[in-house]
């Protein structure tokens, strides 16, 4: 789907899983200085399972929609399973077509990268 499809604009204006989580078990964040995009992710984890996933952030349609749909997708899944996902999973989750804007792939990966950092923290 085109990145400015109504479907995505609606999510952008009112993203799923949006909000700060005060009692998160683990959190992580990233700032992309090149465009000022900022994302913070919070997870509640029990017995290796992601019970609740939230995020806050400021960014473009691609980074906000990508992170939002990623949070929605990982809720209820085990960390072991989510850890195995490669970056291409972001295309699968969002269904976004970036073929005419390849430079925006880094926006799509913003939330994914933060999640990888969180997993690294968890395994230490």
């Amino acid at each position, binding site marked *: 789907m085109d990145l400015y499809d109504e479907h995505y604009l609606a999510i952008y204006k009112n993203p799923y899983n949006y909000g700060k989580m005060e009692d998160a078990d683990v959190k992580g964040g990233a700032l992309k*200085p090149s465009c000022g995009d900022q994302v913070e992710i919070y997870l509640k984890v029990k017995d290796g399972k992601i019970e609740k996933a939230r995020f806050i952030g400021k960014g473009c349609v691609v980074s906000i929609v990508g992170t939002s749909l990623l949070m929605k997708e990982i809720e209820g899944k085990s960390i072991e399973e989510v850890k195995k996902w490669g970056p291409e999973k972001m295309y699968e989750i969002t269904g976004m077509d970036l073929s005419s804007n390849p430079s925006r792939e880094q926006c799509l990966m913003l939330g994914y990268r933060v999640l990888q950092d969180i997993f690294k923290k968890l395994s230490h």
Partner: protein
Amino acid sequence: MKHLFPIFERYKELVYLDSAASTLKPKSVIDGIAQFYSYHYANIHRGAYPLSEEATEMYEKARESVARFLGVKPDQVAFLKNATEALNLAVYNLRGREGWTSVMEHHSLYVPMKKYMKKLAVGWKIEKAAVVAITQGSNVLGKVPDMKEAREQSQYLIVDGTQYVQHFRPYLPSFDPDFYAFSGHKIFGPSGVGVLYIKEPERWEPLLYGGGTVEYVGETITFKPNIQKYEAGTPPIAQVWGLKLALDFFLQHEEEIKENDKRLIKYMEKRLEEEKLPAPLGDKRDIPVFSFYWEEVHPHDVATLLGRKHIAVRSGHHCAQPLHRALGIPASFRASLSLYNDEKDVDRFIKELKVIRDGFIR
């Protein structure tokens, strides 16, 4: 003026509003470079055959053109890779001193100042310092600072003329900088060539050492006494010739450029106001550079959506992160205009901005 720029023959619907990043190239420059490569090319200096002599003569003629353009002597004009290299050379030679630079600076001047000064003050208002390093035109706000004041406040003055020279001809003796830099590709010329004016060329060191800069190489090394000591290795010969042609183009259209800039600044400001679109960053601009920050729409989204309508703008921090931080914004999108733009381009930009605004903010 679009007819002078071949890109519009191929890409008729293009509205090019990214001249602060790089100007488009007129036919005279493109053809002139092709001509140079086709009929006059050889490596310069030290070639004892006529073709090399001819290329050398053209290269040095270009140096004279740049010197005339700036109001200085040819042996004060060094050809380097770009303005970044030129500014680095200037700052490096003044290293270890106390400096001041403006918050508006492009990273090409800000970063070397930060690296090489013993202490660096940064601000809006020019302050007294051993080294004052300042742009002659902000690539985000379109503001032109007072060069005479910069001179008065400094022992050494470094000026980044990169944004200024595509709009106005600078006359260096009026503010007497120690170093003045600009790049070829932002004044209708080719990329790969930058200019550094050096007030006292005999006094400073080059950044690079190598062929073409030396007289005697043995246990000791002696350097050429002239500007060539700054130009190690084979220089960008054809690009230097292209820059000469670009300056010819600029001078031929100097009055039209000034008139067009002035008219379009007014027109853009008027249209933005009429359509109740957010005002550009900064108060008043001296060169036609308009940057915007919209709380509700990310600059990358604006730029991508405009791009789909064949309107070329830039989004991000424009290599001016300190400025964006000072303004309290993460990034912006920028429309920068030049000789080939007209009212119709502004109208299309405004029309599409309204579509984007209505799509996102409702």
